[in-house]
């Protein structure tokens, strides 16, 4: 192992060496720079690897041959090595990235870059307080120099503001340092004893040092200067400034907080969380890409500071957690800054240019996923560990603030991603191979880091999961035609099913069949897509991977990771739809919000244990159990789109592509249902403030069932109608589950199966119609029955099944429903469910009538039947529905037996094909028989009487003795249920939408208002900085006064 000091020596030596090169040889100077940075990076990496593998031991490096504290010493441990690797490699890549500008400005600027990286490394290693100051000043000066790389003249102003602020900081730091020296008789950091948090003498000196280091982290709101730099500097430098400088400064702060003792940790926690929340909130109002990245950087570093503040509760996992966040931030943020160089415009929507190059879109998505802490990236593991530690220690408010801010951050970033995918780019992407190579390297690194964090997690290493890898496999395969990929995808799903279905209980098996085999079936429809269909299969398979893993998950970690996979995958899928940008955003925000509720719930349940079996949910302490239940239920109910948390669903499902809508509606919603199954299975009845929570669920389910149905009846858009109908159907299922009896559960399961079948079928059918008519508005269609007969049949069967009219399978659901409510004490919620039943007819009839019946429109007279591959799965579904209706025992019997084991009863008796309950009988075969015989007899009778009926033309109707010739006025379709709307329209009042819009507007308004605080005046920034220091001083002083 080479001495880590060589990192500093190499940086400095090379910087000095540059001056000796001939004036003209800028190219040689560049290579020297690269070589030096590469060497520094190599040393750091070799130490990282050595320390990680145990080949090397952490080393204390003394200088001047004298032991500390009498000479400056440095320390190289695991954290230091890893962070220096980050710093040096960021520097190296940025150097490549800035090649052109470095050559333009010459070797002096290369020397500055070298010194900056050297100083950052020094800042990480040094154990001497004054040496820390020297390195900070070097960083300030070098940064001020590199800001000049930018061709943006505004950068000058930013650089000057930075210097002004740095002066104030260095004054505070120096005063703090010298008084600390006076108190300890040493400048060595390790000699600083833990101090109580008081504001006299040595403690005040430590406060000054700490606050100065915190100020280097750009805490909110004393950070206007940093944002200006991010906005105007060269993206290559911004990458360093955010990733490398941020990392080093955070570590420096950590070193000091570490020695100052636990009394000071609340300071870090407080400032950290305020910064994280504030920065993310203000980012909401940003439309400038780099400034947005700046806000995000500030927020992330604030988060790291907050984590540092949890040193006492995190203990030995602190490096893992803080490191996970810090390194994710570094890689992702530098990657994003580098990407920004490839985009010419500076508006967020200008990133649409990236679509010219799909690889860059993948990189963009990777970085955003990494920043938001999605699996399998390091920040995911960190988030998991952090929330577990926080919840275990009762820091609920802090957890809530953290999760809410994280959600806002995700909203900001995904809104941006949505713009990149959906907006039109005005200017083409910059073609620069170096830039792209650097970005891709960062992306590659992110996966390597994912592996490392996964391996160290003590949990499953997510990046090695076969389904995930299978999904990622489609990234390189994207150059192949869609049909080939589709075949592979279907094969993959079937094989995965064959591999994983053994040993599952019947409930899980049913869900696995729906999710995996159902997915394979729905993918048949994807055969209709022509060309390559880039970017479809990875998200789709990611979603299916998440669902497959969800069913087979055993620990809460596996469950949550799978949950996030399916959420993210489906988000990307939904985003592919035509007008889906805002809807995909609201989908991901609600989904992540729900996921965070799950996270908090699991964390609370586990009591801090990182490995927590889902089955242990039944054993948690009774005083926390209700809260766990509430949190988990919120998470799952968000997914099933219960009334109030439903506003994401209609848009997301309606705007998705033809074959995506059935996936996200028919299949994905079942994930929430599955979660509720597990939750109720393990936790059963829970009581909070004297209220049985399952009763609340019953009410919520019933309300969703009713209101969802009413809203569906008022839709003009066919897919929205189906989407609202899903809300209603899921409401039924939730209702059934929450009844907490055998038949209720069977009902829910029956709904899960039925809803999958007929909703998939209907979405496919409507999608097929849309493919042909190019509209989703039903009143623009009409009379398509003769043009699209197969589609009509599937809609017909679908709506009969869904409405519960015998003989199709929906009736079975209703029958079980009545038997279920007979055995419960709850009565009032039934009113809502009773009301929603007939309303189902309204929207279903409207769907089939407005599209297929009535008068065809002139412009749609020539449309053809939907494409074969869209019709084919529908026909399979039709066959299944009929079979399932006649022989429900095929599936239900086993499940019924299993549920019987859970509840210890067996209310249904299956004799042959007849089902008997305590209250009644259901004989599906007989029902079929009677109906079929009667129907056929009457039909034959009619044909006998009426065989010579003449087919007439379109307008041959009796219409006030006139014959209308205008289908637009004759086809009664728009606002079809006007009378119903008159009576029940008050239910349409967008209360939930209004509420969430209000929340969103309030946040945006706050952000818009608060950011005016950053006036752009350097002097004001300095005043704010002092204001921040004084405010922190006074607040802490005040809280101490209150405490004593």
């Amino acid at each position, binding site marked *: 192992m080479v001495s880590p*000091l060589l990192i500093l020596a190499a940086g400095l030596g090379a910087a*000095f060496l540059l001056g000796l090169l001939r004036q003209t040889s800028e190219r040689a100077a560049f290579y020297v720079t690269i070589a030096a940075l590469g060497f520094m990076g190599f040393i750091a990496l070799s130490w990282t690897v050595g320390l990680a593998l145990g080949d090397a031991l952490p080393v204390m490096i*003394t*200088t*001047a041959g004298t032991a500390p504290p009498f000479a*400056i010493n440095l320390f190289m441990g695991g954290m230091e090595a890893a962070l220096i690797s980050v710093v040096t490699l960021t520097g190296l890549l940025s150097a490549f990235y800035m090649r052109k500008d470095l050559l333009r400005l010459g070797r002096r600027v290369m020397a500055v870059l070298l010194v900056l990286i050297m100083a950052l490394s020094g800042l990480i290693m040094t154990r001497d307080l004054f040496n820390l100051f*020297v390195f900070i000043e*070097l960083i300030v*000066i070098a940064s001020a120099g590199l800001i000049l790389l930018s061709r943006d003249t505004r950068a000058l102003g930013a650089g000057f503001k930075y210097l002004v602020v740095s002066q104030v900081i260095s004054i505070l730091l120096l005063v703090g340092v010298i008084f600390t020296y006076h108190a300890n008789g040493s400048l060595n950091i390790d000699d600083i004893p833990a101090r109580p948090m008081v504001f006299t003498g040595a403690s005040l000196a430590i406060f000054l040092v700490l606050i100065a280091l915190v100020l280097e982290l750009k805490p909110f709101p004393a950070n206007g200067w940093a944002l200006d730099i991010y906005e105007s500097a060269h993206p290559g430098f911004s990458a360093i400034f955010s990733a490398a400088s941020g990392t080093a400064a955070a570590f420096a702060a950590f070193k000091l907080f570490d020695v100052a003792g636990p009394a000071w940790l609340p300071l870090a926690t407080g400032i950290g969380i305020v910064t994280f929340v504030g920065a993310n909130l203000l980012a909401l109002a940003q439309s400038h890409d780099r400034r947005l990245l700046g806000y995000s950087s500030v927020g992330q570093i604030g988060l790291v500071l907050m984590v540092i503040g949890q040193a006492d509760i995190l203990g030995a996992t602190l490096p893992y957690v803080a490191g996970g966040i810090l390194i994710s931030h570094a890689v992702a943020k530098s990657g994003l800054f580098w990407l920004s160089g490839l985009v010419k415009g500076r508006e967020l929507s200008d990133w649409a240019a990236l679509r010219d190059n799909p690889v860059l879109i993948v990189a963009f998505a990777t970085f955003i996923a990494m920043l938001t802490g999605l699996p399998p990236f390091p920040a995911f593991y960190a988030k998991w560990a952090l929330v577990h530690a926080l919840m275990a220690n009762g820091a609920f408010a802090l957890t809530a603030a953290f999760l809410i801010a994280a959600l806002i951050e995700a909203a900001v970033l995904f809104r941006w991603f949505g713009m990149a995918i959906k907006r039109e780019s005005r200017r083409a992407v910059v073609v620069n191979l170096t830039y792209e190579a650097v970005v891709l390297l960062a992306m590659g690194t992110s996966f390597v880091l994912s592996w490392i964090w996964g391996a160290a997690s003590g949990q499953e290493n997510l990046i090695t999961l076969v389904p995930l890898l299978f999904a990622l496999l489609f990234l390189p395969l994207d150059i192949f035609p869609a049909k080939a990929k589709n075949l592979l995808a279907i094969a993959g799903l079937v094989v995965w099913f064959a591999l994983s279905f053994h040993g599952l209980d019947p409930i899980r098996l049913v869900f696995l069949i729906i999710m995996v085999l159902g997915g394979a079936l729905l993918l048949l429809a994807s055969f209709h897509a022509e060309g390559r269909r880039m970017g479809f299969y990875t998200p789709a398979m990611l979603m299916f991977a998440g669902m497959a893993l969800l069913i087979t998950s055993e620990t809460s970690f596996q469950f949550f990771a799978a949950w996030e996979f399916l959420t993210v995958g489906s988000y990307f899928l939904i985003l592919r739809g035509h007008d889906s940008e805002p809807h995909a955003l609201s989908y991901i925000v609600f989904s992540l919000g729900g996921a965070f509720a799950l996270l908090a719930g699991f964390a609370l349940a586990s009591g801090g244990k990182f490995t927590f079996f889902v089955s242990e949910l039944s054993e948690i302490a009774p005083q926390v159990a209700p809260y766990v239940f509430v949190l988990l239920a919120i998470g799952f109910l968000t997914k099933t789109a219960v009334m109030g948390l439903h506003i994401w669903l209609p848009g997301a499902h309606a705007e998705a592509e033809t074959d995506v809508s059935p996936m996200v509606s028919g299949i994905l919603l079942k994930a929430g249902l599955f979660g509720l199954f597990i939750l109720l299975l393990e936790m059963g009845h829970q009581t909070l403030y004297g209220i049985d929570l399952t009763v609340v669920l019953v009410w919520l389910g019933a309300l969703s069932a009713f209101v969802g149905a009413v809203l569906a009846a008022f839709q003009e858009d066919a897919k929205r109608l189906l989407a609202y109908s899903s809300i209603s159907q899921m409401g039924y299922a939730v209702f059934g589950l929450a009844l907490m009896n055998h038949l209720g559960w069977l009902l829910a399961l029956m709904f899960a199966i039925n809803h999958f079948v007929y909703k998939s079928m209907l979405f496919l059918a409507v999608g097929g119609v849309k493919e042909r008519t190019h509209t989703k508005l039903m009143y623009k269609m009409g009379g398509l029955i003769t043009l699209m007969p197969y589609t009509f049949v599937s809609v017909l069967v679908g709506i009969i099944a869904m409405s519960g009219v015998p003989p199709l399978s929906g009736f079975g659901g209703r029958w079980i429903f009545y038997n279920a409510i007979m055995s419960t004490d709850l009565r009032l919620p039934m009113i809502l469910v009773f009301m929603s039943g007939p309303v189902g007819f309204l929207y279903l009839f409207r769907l089939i009538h407005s599209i297929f019946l009535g008068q065809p429109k002139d412009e749609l007279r020539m449309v053809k039947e939907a494409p074969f591959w869209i019709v084919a799965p529908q026909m399979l579904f039709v066959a299944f529905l009929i079979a399932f209706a006649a022989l429900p025992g095929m599936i239900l019997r086993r499940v019924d037996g299993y549920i019987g084991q859970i509840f210890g009863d067996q209310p249904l008796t299956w004799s042959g094909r007849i089902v008997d309950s305590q209250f009644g009988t259901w004989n599906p075969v007989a029902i079929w028989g009677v109906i079929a015989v009667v129907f056929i007899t009457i039909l034959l009778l009619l044909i006998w009487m009426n065989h010579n009926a003449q087919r007439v033309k379109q307008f041959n109707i009796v219409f006030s003795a006139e014959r209308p010739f205008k289908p637009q006025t004759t086809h009664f379709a728009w606002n079809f249920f006007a009378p119903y709307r008159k009576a029940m329209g008050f239910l349409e009042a967008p209360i939930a939408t209004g509420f969430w819009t209000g929340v969103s507007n309030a946040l945006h308004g706050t952000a818009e208002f608060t950011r005016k605080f950053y006036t752009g005046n350097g002097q004001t920034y300095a005043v704010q900085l002092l204001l921040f220091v*004084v405010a922190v001083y006074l607040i802490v002083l005040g809280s101490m006064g209150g405490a004593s």
Partner: protein
Amino acid sequence: MTTRTAIPLVLLALLGTAFFTLFAGYVPDAELNRTAAYYANQTVAETGAQNVVTAIIVTYRGLDTLGEVTVLFLTAAIVGLVLAHSKAPKGRSGSGFLPSGELLTTGTRMLVPVILLFGAYVFVNGHLTPGGGFQGGAIVASGLLLMLLADPAERFSHGLISRIESSAGLTYVILGLLGMILAGGFLDNRILPLGTFGSILSAGAIPLIYILIGLKVGAEFSSILTSLEETEDAE
């Protein structure tokens, strides 16, 4: 009083109370603290330098000093960089000045060699007497400033300055590394014999380093000065 002045005043008053708390809690030491005591007792034995401050600067806190030199190096580079684009065209620079008087010109010719010599003296004797590389370098640069004042149109070779600066810096780093190989650690001055206490050639590498620092600081200051001067009045 406007808010623009009132707010800083209030803030500074509050900051002042913090400072005053520091001040009020300050008890001057009666004895040297352990670090200072160590230096007082061990400097001579370990470094052979008469000037304890010098020993600290060059050896014990040599890394700081290297950083310090680097600060100047950086500043020089950046100032050069900042001003490079606004260089006045040759010949026009200084044209706005009145010609300097005879007195100044003659005085310069007489004084500059003496100043340079004095500067060299200061940094060579840094380990023995007050002074050292920084002070010496600053004196050397003041000589240069005097020449510039006397003849604003004068140009110094950036190449030369930069070469002096760089080779001095590089040598400094190499000396530091030699310390790791030949002696106890980075920047250990005992790579050379400590010599006789109190003589010029004593204290190991300290005089050498201070000479390098002197050269480097002188070169850097000169570089900054010339860069600033060259932009003067350029339109």
